[in-house]
């Protein structure tokens, strides 16, 4: 199967009541399962390996319809001592200032409010994004070259 066919299957699943789909070809096997609406999904990253978890919402950044308390669903409420560096703009996320350079920060890096953590490119302009949080980076939530929206969580930081 190529990516286009996989997308077609996902589309078909979303538009129907199908909860699981599995296909095996020579040298290739894929199983797609719908995430259960009754179980809270703590993060929206695809599980690595052969299984592709299909989240209730199409993209990690979009809330599920009409949550009773009116707030976005998705990652659970902020844990104590943790904060997130969020995108202040719409654009493309880069870990470094150019393909040849080193990443601005890696997992475990210590940051202060003014540390440059990444670049977000918008309309051909490379914008350096500052941390605005103080602590150490415990998780990197987006991938190099991924489009990001306003408010999207980029890094999880354990505050000092």
């Amino acid at each position, binding site marked *: 199967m190529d990516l286009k066919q996989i997308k077609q299957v996902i589309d078909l699943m979303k538009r129907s009541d199908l909860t699981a789909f599995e296909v095996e070809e020579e040298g290739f096997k894929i199983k797609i399962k719908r995430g259960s609406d009754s179980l809270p999904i703590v993060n929206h990253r695809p599980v690595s390996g052969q299984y592709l978890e299909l989240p209730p919402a199409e993209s990690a950044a979009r*809330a599920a319809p009409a949550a009773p308390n009116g707030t976005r669903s998705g990652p659970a409420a902020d844990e104590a001592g943790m904060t997130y560096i969020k995108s202040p703009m719409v654009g493309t996320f880069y870990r470094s200032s150019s393909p040849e350079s080193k990443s601005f920060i890696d997992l475990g890096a210590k940051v202060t409010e003014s540390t440059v953590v990444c670049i977000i490119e918008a*309309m051909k302009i490379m914008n350096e994004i500052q941390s605005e949080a103080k602590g150490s980076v415990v998780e990197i939530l987006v991938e190099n070259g991924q489009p990001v929206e306003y*408010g999207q969580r980029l890094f999880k930081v354990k505050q000092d």
Partner: protein
Amino acid sequence: MIQKVLIANRGEIALRIVRACRELGVKTLAVYSEADVQSLHVQLADEAICIGGPRSADSYLRADRIISAAEIADVDAIHPGYGFLSENAKFAEQCESCNIKFIGPKSRSIKMMGDKSVAKDTVRKAGVPIVPGSDGPVESESEAVKTARRIGYPVIIKAVAGGGGRGMRIAHNDVSFAKEYHVARNEAEKAFGNGSVYIEKYIEKPRHIEFQILADSHGKILHLGERDCSVQRRHQKLIEESPSPFLTPGLRKTMGKAAIKAAAAADYENAGTIEFLVDAKGNFYFIEMNTRIQVEHPVTEECTGIDLIKQQIKIANGEKLDFDQGDIKFEKHAIECRINAEDPARNFTPSPGTIGLYYAPGGHGVRVDSHVYSGYSIPPYYDSMIGKLITYGPNRKTALERMYRALSEYLIRGIKTTIPLHKAIMSDPVFIEGKATTGYMEEFMARTPTDLFT
């Protein structure tokens, strides 16, 4: 070939655009503020990108973020809806330079018609009647008086920098003019920082009648009839209908031709509206052109049967309009009531909050354009319009009766709305007889007890 459209708007019009795109097989991208995460169109669109905080200035007016979203999602066109950036010539220009099709007129048409005096001058040269007045601001009191006498009393003195019905004084003769001229100048200076005023003929209790224009990129310009929008409160429209109960077929033909001339003078493309004031004798005067789709477009859609939003997308796609002026028939009478989250019994104070039970009317001849639903929280950051109720039928009587019936079924619990006000107007003899002019609302409110609105 337009395959994906970014909807640079929110609320009911964003939902309307999603629906039209769906029917055309075009993909949709909703851009939204953090206050609109639970918005219906955001859930229904194929893709969605958050572009900012709740305030419009931090989201829906951020042209840079909107264009950024358009680029990362690889859209072909942007539909600006109404309000926000829809009449921002600079935004249209930015789209043009980024090779994204702006679903609307060319940026220079927007610029031309955006300046009220340039607009009037442009259409006047094309032979369209305008409200007689001074050519621009008056330089001195003596010039002002001369202008007033030339035009003929009564006249209205307007602030050049004013708008939204503010900074206007009326004078009926030389004596009152001398006084009102100075008052107007002082008020304008204080309110807008600019004391410049211009003079116009004051048309007493006119009807506000506007013509819908569709123009393709191959030179064809058509009009889709008029909408009578005379029922207004503080220059905000409340009720619109088509055809106007006042126009005769002859006057409709004449005004239709004038509307097309005005659009041609602006080198217009896509959907637009020419606004006129019409006096009791049937004299009509151009006041302005709206270079965008309007709130009340469903009235024209139900009257003529033509889907205006789909036509907008087709025109933006470079397609020719596949019908002519003679093909357009005004088969139904349609009327629209704007449903606002306001309390008419308390001077229309906004009523934000969470909608408990929501039940929309239905049945033959009823259309509801609304983005709200049971449990929806109305964000306090935007305007108070929560939906539009449109009814239509073979004649005006049926459309009105249907509107009264539909308003009676419409349940929106948990907030105050203007539904009871609309019901009262539908039962009012002056309105039923088709006699409403722009003076109607003030007169109606003065003689109607407010407990009729609860």
